[in-house]
């Protein structure tokens, strides 16, 4: 649709997020910035992220990006949380540049989760 502010990927991820929610007994972090709120929760088994879930208060791009990130990290190594693929998310979801700040709020949450998990292991 011409003039549609949302890519097909954003529409799909926003409409049917399969990773919305939380992880019982998991590690959870909440980041609030720029009027946005993102909570990421995860559980780890043998160094692997066995479940990653999100909750978010923000625009459709933020919610879609949070779902995208959960899918991206789940079943991967917990150590991957210190690498946040900002450019890939911006490209895959066609996030407008003026909304980069909102994706950075998600990045803060993901990195914070990584640090929290690392501190629990040590």
């Amino acid at each position: 649709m011409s003039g549609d502010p949302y890519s097909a990927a954003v529409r799909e991820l926003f409409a049917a997020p399969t990773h919305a929610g939380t992880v019982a007994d998991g590690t959870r972090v909440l980041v609030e910035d720029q009027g946005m709120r993102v909570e990421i929760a995860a559980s780890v088994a043998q160094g692997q992220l066995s479940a990653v879930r999100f909750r978010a208060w923000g625009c459709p791009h933020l919610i879609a990006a949070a779902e995208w990130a959960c899918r991206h990290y789940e079943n991967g190594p917990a150590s991957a949380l210190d690498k946040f693929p900002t450019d890939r998310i911006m490209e895959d979801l066609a996030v407008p540049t003026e909304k980069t700040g909102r994706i950075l709020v998600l990045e803060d949450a993901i990195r914070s989760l990584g640090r929290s998990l690392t501190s629990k292991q040590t």
Partner: protein
Amino acid sequence: MTERMIYLDYAASTPVDTRVLDRMREVAAINCANPSSTHAAGREAQAIIATAAGQLAGLLKVNPGTLVWTSGATESDNLAIAGGARYRAHRGKHIVSMKTEHKAVTDVFEALSKEGFDVTWVEAGGNGLVSPEVFAAALRDDTQLASIMFVNNETGVIQDVEALGTICRERDVLFHVDGAQAVGKLPIDLGALPIDLLSLTGHKFYGPKGIGALYIADRPGCHVEPILFGGGQQRRIRPGTLPTDLVAGLGMAAEVAANSIESDLEHLGRLRNLLWDGIKDIAGITLNGDPEGFPGILNVSVEDIEGESLLLALEPICVATGSACNSKSQEPSYVLRALGLSDSQAQSAIRFSVGRPTTTDEVAFAAGRYREAVARLRELAPGAAA
């Protein structure tokens, strides 16, 4: 999109009535002349325009000679405010309006302030209404023009233009009314109302886009300087070749409206009540503006919901977060902020606007979809129950 689109954004624009479309087709097919031409075809075009002026004058209960065709309400507002203020600038340079006006008004005031005009913004109460006492207190000896909109485009609030206009008459102040949301929707008798200048546009009442008009009362001291130059059309107040088919369409829209305003108002009132009854028990919901406002508009906010996500979650319902003319900015509505809403409340505001073709089934569906969307977004938010 698999679901059928439901259009509830009639305050932004309305579909062209089939009778209007038929008239425009007919005119476009039979006449291609420039209405300024003096040959037979030109005179035929002039006659078509005269018929349309008669139809619009009938709706507003004025003399057709008081109407000037424009490209729409934005141009009419510009012509009325800038043209009126400049015409009377030798008598004083104080002008008055409200922050809850449409950008087509507030931006003209901002521009005039850069020309040396002194602007006073009158405050609205929390319900969006300006009291006559507050309005009167804002007028000064050097006030030359005041502009207040009839029906607010975001909240549907109806100002008491009769009381405000009476004050202006007593103080010899030109009184402009932006009637874009009122003309063709509310009964308006300009023969009885103390309004000097009234802006209107066709596409808000089932006419075509790209055509509007400005009413200029036929009384001493009521005049505007042109803001466009280039020809002698329309007594030099608004030069330019008139689009005969669009003018004919606006005239027909006015005739249709004149015969349907009362039944339209009853229909819209039923729909708005049905919609509000379907959502009013949602926790944290508030109705923005005056409950006694124009029944075609229902503006609501709900606590702790992000407006842009709400708008997307409401699809396939087409609604607005603010004025359609301003919706790309993604900023909280300045109109609602001026009424005292917080950024968060203003940001979650949704304007439903119903129209002549809207059905009760569509409104019931919209209420259900709104409830679902709010519940889903609350569930998605941090702090929701696990």
